């Protein structure tokens, strides 16, 4: 499931991961490290909300 950053609107897609943040493809949102932040606005994981 994708998650949206409620601070800036960036959508984390587990299929793509987040290469800038060192997150490989096929990483579930739940498995992101606690200190992972939004690649666009640098807010913490807790501001993300289930998207679809």
């Amino acid at each position, binding site marked *: 499931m994708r998650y949206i*950053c*409620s*601070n*800036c*609107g960036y959508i984390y897609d587990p299929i793509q991961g987040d290469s800038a943040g*060192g997150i*490989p493809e096929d990483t579930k949102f739940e498995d992101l490290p606690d200190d992972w932040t939004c690649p*666009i606005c640098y807010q913490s*994981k807790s*501001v993300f909300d289930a998207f679809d």
Partner: protein
Amino acid sequence: MEDGRLSFEELARSRLVLFDGAMGTQIHEWNLADSDYDFKLGCSEILNQTRPDVIQSIHEAYYAAGSDVVETNSFGSNPIVLVEYDIASSAYDLSLKAAQIARKAASIWSDPRKCPDGANAAKPRYVAGSIGPGTKLISLGQTDWTTMLESYKQQAKGLLDGKVDLFLIETCQDPLQIKCALNACFDTMAAAQIIIPVIVTVTVETTGTLLVGTPVEAIVAILEPFDIFALGLNCATGPEDMRNYVRQLSQIWPGKLLVQPNAGLPQNVNGQLVYTLSIEDYVNTMSAFVTELGVSLVGGCCGTNPDFLRALAKELPSLKPADRTIDYQPSVASLFGVQTIKQDPPAFYIGERTNTNGSKLFKDLLLVDDYDGLVEIAREQCGTGVHALDICVAYTGRDEVKDMEQALKRIITQIDMPLVFDSTEVNVLEKSLQMYGGRAIINSINLEDGEARVDRICQLAKRYGAALIALTIDEKGMARESHEKLAIAKRIHEIAVKRHGLRPQDLIFDALTFTLGAGDETLRDSAQKTIDGIRLIKENLPGVATVLGLSNVSFGLSPVSRKVLNSVFLHECIAAGLDMAIVNLKHIVPIAQIAEEDLKAAYRVMNNEWLQEKDPLFAFIAQFEGKKDSEPQLSASEEANLTVHELLTRNIVKGSKLNLSVNLERGRNENLKALTIINDTLIPAMKIVGELFGSGKMQLPFVLQSAEVMKASVDLLQPFMEKVEGEEQVSIVLATVRGDVHDIGKNLVDIILTNNGYKVYNLGIKCEIDTIIQKAIEVGASAIGMSGLLVKSTIIMKENLEELARRKIKVPVLLGGAALTPSYVYDICTPLLPSPLVYCSDAFEGLKAMSLIKEGGIAGYLAAEASKREARKQARPALASVAPVEEIVIDRTVKVPKAPFLGVRHVAEVDLETVYSYLTEEVLFRGRWGYRRGSMSKQDYDEQLATVIRPEFEALKLDAKLRQLIKPAVSYGYWECNSSGQDLIIYDPDSDGQLGRFTFPRQSEAPFQCIADYFYSVESGIRDVIALQVCTVGQAAADESARLYGSGNYKDYLLFHGLSVECAEALAEYWHRVVREELGITSEDGNTIQDFVVQKYQGSRYSFGYPACPDLAQNRTLCELSQSHLIGVTVSDEEQMVPEQTTSAFVVHHPQAKYFNA
């Protein structure tokens, strides 16, 4: 008037009539000097005095194009508008001149000897006196009826004295404003003893309603009672977008139709409005309006010019207007909706609970001035199946006018049901009608005290276009016999119709209900006589409607039997022709659901049938002896069974102020101490709210609604609180840290803690650690809370913790803020502070921490959390490492775009709708507002979006626009520049010297990026370009946020603040797009806002304070270069921009420039 010609009315009845096109657009073409406006820029009406030649030539150009009618240049020539230019006293003169100029043009083009295009082009020409909507929305209370009426009268008198052929009340946005302008015209004509036709055109926005929210069918219901020659649409959109509304009008408006569209929807091109409709499309659609929808008066509005009208004039002679089939049903309306008086199936139900005689609760709330509570009752009633609400605030000893004013002020804009104004006082009724844009029903008149009062109220109904309930009571009293009921109805009908010009369809007769339950011998047949009376009135007075106050019939009987008798009586009345009933629908059941024996007993008592000498009333009572209502309890009686504790808990958890003061009063009457109520009931209720929030079952706006109820409760209990000596309240010092102005998060914590019994010392924003420490020592605080939104604030918090440790302040510290992560707090910050440190992801986490501190369990809790975190860390498999970071090779062949200008420009007015279109709605809803989906299913969330969030969003946007709370403005510009190492040198466009310099950090690890790298260097010999922009939504937004917070409207505060912040972001995104357009670098642009979020465009927009350029101090340079003070933006000593809802940025065009963490 030119002699011997047809009147306008005769002309319009004989053929199609061509009006003119835009006035404003034509004036604009003249490029007049400021001196022509007498330096009152934007005041077109002043030109009637300074440049009558210009105005006359515009009129003449339209006559030359073939227009039969031109509109005077008097759109805003009334005191309400002109006062903004300090020339309110010129209203009459400017209106008079406007009419005279047009009249002069008309006489030239009517006269075969004078007509510039030759005798053949001469024909009778007409002048319409234009009356615009003004600048104040009366329905929203921005002005009042008396002021507006007086203002319009001056305008109307000027126009009438200048001999216009008709009044055109145009571009209307608010039905109450229309009613006011109509009355000004009618009053002026009556005084001058001249009658000319009046036409009204309204502006339907793309939302399908007028600006205040009124749909087309409600407009017709509201205006149909008035003597209006034609109704139509103008402005707002192009003709194609009007088609549906024109069709609606064509089907229901009984008079003629006028349509004057804009030349298409205005497109915003670089802050300029441009109209894009082709003449051919205009003519084709307008022709279709005539031939398909029967429009017979045509013209144009903004963006149309004489070429449009000339093309249409050519077409008109060949067009045959369609025959219209008009089906108008007499109706009443609110600002937002309409109800036909004859409902199918019958009847039209009028709710009786918003009435001091109909509801004890309503009366109790009124007696404690709880006007908001009255609105809640109104709202609750709306969902019960009624079609209108009866509003009565009469109570002996109270100021009924004031009470009505206070109640209506709230109800009119919040309740979408039509209203029935129920009072015996003429001045109360008149005040109500002067506040109400909808079509009301007046309740009521009768002949008990003769005809004088009936005359007065009939005049009111006529003047304000209301319907009127008339009771069959005369000087001898209430009519009991059916023929008496008819006789009185006929007499009132005669007075209303013949004497006052009301129509039969405006009248609603009440044949009176008497009670059967008291056993009064003389009333045994009264139900039957009432039914006969209804039948007689309907047969003898065609067109009128009938109404009945129903429940009286069963007064004195048991509740369960009342329901049956009421229902049977209603059923029979409807069969006899009853149209409306004033009733509590909870007390009505379908006849089919009543047991046969019950039904028979009810019919016998209603028909007074004595079977074997048995009294039908006694039989009826016996029939229901001992019977209980088997249906779910009525809410009123249900409430009576709940304890005070349960009632108050419900108030808090549901966020409802309904009955709040009454429930609290009840609690105190049960000898509960104020403090006991707070501690044992209200705080535990807030705890439930917190748990619901924590488990994702309740969203932030609803939490705040609960907090508002909590605050209101504590305020009400405050006078009864006893000071408890010696007992220490647990307290916290709360602050947004140095360099950060964002206080919404901190304020939410304040709201939640305060309303849970903690003492909060809220030190505000940009708070130095010294101030925090001083306050904490001074008040002996139990905890310190630090908050901040910026990434930079997390660093400040860390420094503050070090300072606390250094000064040996040993209180627990709570940290909150969107940029914090648990690992930052626990792994990096915790070791710095000897006392407990808690990460709070939201306000309720803060509450939990405070309660742990109060009970002494904080250390144990933190230790347990720490070991849990440790366990999780170990359990998680390490993530596969990604490919090593590649080196970035910066393309040095990039072409430097050409700046459209060098230096600064200010855009003081940016179209708010365009800004709205750049809003990231997901962020607003989920982030700013806290409508998080959490564990909800997508389907449930989508439904909430559609039914709750979006309606709130739309209403708020509209409100912000109407009340001008969000006023977007931009200062921006382009400069030549070159990099020099990690610096960027900005050149002065005038002297070519160095104007300013930015310094950017370089990444300490690969790929070692620095923003300066993305510009050509001094050494390259190529001048690069940078754009700077400062975008604000203005001080009004900050003021409104502060006002809402200060007045305890927490939810509104959250919603409005969030919208204003997101608008500042949207404006930045929009302006970045404008900059890309001006630089000609839009080829990589994505199509949606979502694309822009992830930088799908060429280059990047950076703001100081973010990781690639964290030094906030350089924002001062940015603002100085952009001269942001000219749009009201200043930089505080803490390097923060004021007002808060402001963003600044610099735009880098290099395609490789993207966000990174330096």
